């Protein structure tokens, strides 16, 4: 089976090569995206129906070492995730790609990106893994700078490149430590190796930096809200929905699979980073007015939730509680899958808005629910799913995460017992803020009255884009209604990683999910959806039958002052003002300065708001200026005489010899 996946990857690469040749022709986009859709579909089928584990060794890569590939339950799950996202993105792009001004900058890299992501999750040795990882980074970088002449995109590409390189370096070092001095090369050798506690901790830190920078963990997230929105929308969907999951795969593969039994304190940094990431991500999303950047910040939030659940899984695993660890892992993976679904959906919606109006700034939108009703419906469902509202899929995974937190008083360590409830409170805070964030995103962009002429003349998007969005809407509903099916599908993964699994869910009466025991908790999305639909239906029918069904259309009442212009509506900034006022001073050192002239003075009153990106200002700017300063100093080395260069070489030699002597 792994050969079939490799075949798919090879086809992706072939399509990429062919795309270089044909990308300037008209209609090339449809062919390339159609081919990608077909290949992703094939890979999806392979991954879904792959039987037992299979592996293969190809004579590629470093001479005499060959490239190892393997397909196990974990890879299968992530292949399903990647190729579902890839298939929908390709379907969307068949329609959306037609609006691309310079398709030759996108078409060759798109299949390459898809192939590389597929390759990462089946790689079974560090060389293949890092090769595929770097291929994925570079292909996505090329897609990020596809519109490099637009303001800010070049900088986004640069920051992304720096962070991607840093992340890959960390992963390289982690693999080096895992391989040990004997140089055990394949993953199968690393799995057997025993690391002492200090070295294992170092590997964990390196993986958190390496995979965390790709996934968008705070404070390594700075590139993400710059780079994800800069790419074309279907690529943004892939980067946010899928590529961040590949980073999560890397974390799980190394920490849960290769690194051996965990210590309990490993969970502390993972939990803390996860919770901080979740809250800071959603808080930044709430303040953002660029629709695509808002979605990128919300990705950071969801990555935080996934890492939080993974941290709990580590804690349970370290304490020998495989069922609880399986529950936490299920919650994490389920949420990762759900996030792929609804974040792709939301980016597709944002892309449709962008093509219809040419605007990403929500302050210039409004009223799109009238002009683009189907897109608006799809976007609304995406917003409800990501806000974790029942009976959609986002709630199912969040419910599982909450259940995991409720098992954790059984943990023996005091540190964790104090940390976990705090983390739980932060998770609940993030969930509530996410709902506010997406009411704002949908309410300002799609509802109300148009705030600009472009928004007034928007038209519904094409059929392919709509098909992709509605397909994802259907999947959001299905995963929310039948979460038990997903949990059962995750059982092989938890068995592989943790030697434990949740009780079989699909045999539960009425398809409820009962993660621990019926006495503890149960949830049935299908029943809740049915109850809501039936009672809403009964209410509507009864009211129209026995009450009045007349409607009179009039201008909006607006408390007796109709006819005020659309500028009097709440804007995105005014909508988030109360929340900014409550939380802003803590998170952004935000403040408002009101300049109110005294009575009689004819000056206009002014209000100015200040806020700071604290991570960028306290961490990256000093780092950047330090690098610049050091580079400036070292610049002098380029202009030495030959004698000085020789002296420098000699000094270096002596210094190294002295160091060697001291070492021994």
């Amino acid at each position, binding site marked *: 089976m792994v050969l079939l996946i490799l075949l798919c990857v090879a086809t992706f690469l072939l399509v990429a090569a062919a795309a270089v040749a044909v990308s300037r022709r008209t209609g090339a986009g449809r062919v390339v995206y159609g081919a990608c859709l077909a290949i992703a579909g094939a890979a999806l089928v392979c991954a879904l129906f792959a039987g037992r584990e299979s592996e293969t060794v190809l004579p590629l890569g470093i001479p005499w070492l060959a490239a190892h590939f393997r397909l196990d339950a974990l890879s299968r799950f992530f292949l399903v995730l990647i190729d579902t996202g890839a298939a929908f993105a390709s379907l969307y792009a068949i329609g959306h790609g037609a609006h691309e001004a310079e398709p030759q900058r996108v078409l060759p890299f798109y299949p390459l990106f898809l192939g590389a992501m597929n390759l990462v999750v089946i790689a079974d040795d560090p060389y293949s893994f890092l090769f595929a990882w770097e291929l994925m980074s570079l292909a996505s970088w090329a897609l990020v700078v596809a519109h490099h002449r637009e303001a800010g995109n070049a900088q986004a590409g640069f920051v992304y490149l720096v962070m991607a390189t840093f992340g890959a370096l960390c992963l390289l070092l982690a693999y080096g430590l895992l391989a040990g001095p004997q140089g055990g090369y394949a993953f199968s050798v690393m799995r057997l190796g025993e690391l002492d506690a200090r070295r294992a901790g170092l590997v964990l830190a390196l993986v958190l930096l390496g995979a965390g920078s790709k996934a968008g963990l705070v404070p390594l997230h700075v590139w993400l809200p710059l780079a994800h929105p800069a790419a074309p929308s279907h690529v943004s969907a892939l980067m946010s929905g899928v590529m961040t999951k590949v980073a999560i795969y890397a974390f799980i593969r190394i920490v849960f699979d290769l690194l051996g039994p965990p210590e309990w304190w490993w969970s502390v940094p993972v939990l803390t980073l996860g919770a901080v990431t979740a809250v800071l991500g959603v808080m930044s999303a709430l303040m953002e007015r660029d629709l695509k950047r808002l979605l990128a910040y919300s990705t950071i939030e969801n990555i935080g939730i996934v890492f939080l659940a993974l941290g709990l899984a580590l804690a349970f695993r370290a304490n020998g509680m495989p069922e609880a660890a399986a529950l936490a892992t299920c919650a994490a993976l389920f949420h990762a899958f759900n996030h792929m679904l609804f974040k792709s959906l939301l980016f597709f919606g944002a892309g449709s808005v962008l093509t219809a109006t040419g605007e990403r700034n929500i302050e210039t939108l409004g009223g799109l629910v009238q002009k683009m009703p189907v897109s608006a419906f799809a976007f609304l469902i995406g917003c409800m799913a990501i806000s974790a509202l029942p009976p959609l899929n986002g709630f199912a995974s969040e419910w599982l995460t909450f259940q995991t937190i409720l098992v954790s008083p059984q943990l023996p360590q005091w540190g964790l017992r104090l940390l976990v409830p705090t983390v739980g409170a932060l998770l609940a805070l993030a969930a509530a803020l996410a709902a506010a964030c997406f009411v704002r995103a949908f309410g300002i962009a799609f509802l109300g009255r148009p705030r600009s002429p472009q928004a007034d003349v928007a038209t519904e998007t094409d059929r392919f884009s709509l098909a992709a969005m509605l397909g994802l809407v259907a999947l959001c509903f299905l995963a929310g209604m039948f979460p038990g099916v997903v949990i059962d599908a995750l059982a092989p993964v938890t068995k592989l990683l943790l030697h434990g699994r949740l009780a079989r869910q699909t045999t539960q009466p009425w398809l409820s999910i009962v993660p621990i025991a019926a006495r503890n908790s149960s949830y049935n999305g299908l029943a809740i959806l049915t109850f809501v639909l039936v009672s809403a239906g009964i209410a509507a029918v009864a009211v129209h039958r026995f*009450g009045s069904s007349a409607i009179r259309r009039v201008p909006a*009442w607006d408390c007796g002052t109709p006819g005020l212009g659309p500028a009097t509506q709440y804007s995105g900034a005014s909508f988030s003002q109360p929340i900014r006022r*409550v939380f802003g001073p803590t998170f952004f050192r935000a403040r408002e300065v009101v300049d109110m002239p005294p009575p009689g003075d004819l000056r206009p009153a002014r209000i100015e708001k200040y806020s700071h990106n604290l991570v960028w200002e306290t961490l990256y700017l000093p780092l950047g200026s330090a690098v610049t300063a050091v580079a400036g100093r070292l610049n002098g080395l380029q202009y030495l005489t030959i004698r000085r260069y020789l002296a420098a070489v000699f000094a270096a030699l002596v210094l190294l010899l002295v160091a060697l002597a001291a070492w021994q």
Partner: protein
Amino acid sequence: MAVIFDVLAQSVQMFLVLLLAPLLTGYVRKVKARLQRRRGPPLIQPYRDLRRLLGKEVVLADNASWLFRAVPYTIFAVTWVAAALVPTFATGLLFSWSGDLIVITALLGTARFLQAMAALDVGTSFGGIGASRELMFASLAEPALIMAVFSVALIAGSTQLSTVADYILSGQAGLRVSLALALVAFVIVAIAENARIPVDNPATHLELTMIHEAMVLEYSGRHLAMIDLAASLKLLLYMSLIVCLFFPFGMTLGHDGLGPYLVGGMSWFVKLAVVGTMLAAFETMTAKMRVFRVPGFLGVALMLSLLATLLRFVSGNL
């Protein structure tokens, strides 16, 4: 036979909450009026209002979308389902397994989400002000509620409401610090979520501090009736939830037949009346807060509930 009885008990519960909700609203209004030395509207005034609203045509803004028209029924349905999931006179009803406390919290979140969306739909500044403030409050009230739910769930070892009620009823829980803290948090959240004084004033229109009423200003006729009914249901839900979690005495355990059901029902009525009176008295004695004082008020609830959960995590018997 048992199945028919179960279905019957579940249906009685569903329609009982629906029928009693306006009465409870009327009762609170009446008590409040009496406390303020007013005669007040009759108890059944909310029913009359509903009937009148249902018979009137809907006056709809020109640019109102399908969302605006669908939301009242959805809010009503979601709140009704949530209210029907809270055990009132008996635990372990037929469909009680389909959702736990977290689901009920999230269902109320769904209603709030849709309500705020609808408020933004017509594009008036009052809708925006209501939606934005409601969500600011919710961003503190919801975590507080979740944490309070956690602390109760950790005591009973379950998030399933029926199980929690049974556990508290069995007397094993006893008196605990964390329960008391959770109760205070629950009450604060209930006051805020039901738009009562001191957070919001349910009796006012056209005040700059209004929140819930600002969101529904553009609604009329049957739509407004649905929203009002949902608001009454929500009040009933929160009161039932508090009595179910903290004072489940008199509730029937499972399927004991008609007699215990009647006892359970009677005790539930009495408890609702007591809690309703307390709410009216509290509202009469308190002044409304400024909007930006409310986060502090809700922050108290969040901290208390977090403290309650922490206590449960670090000690088995606090």
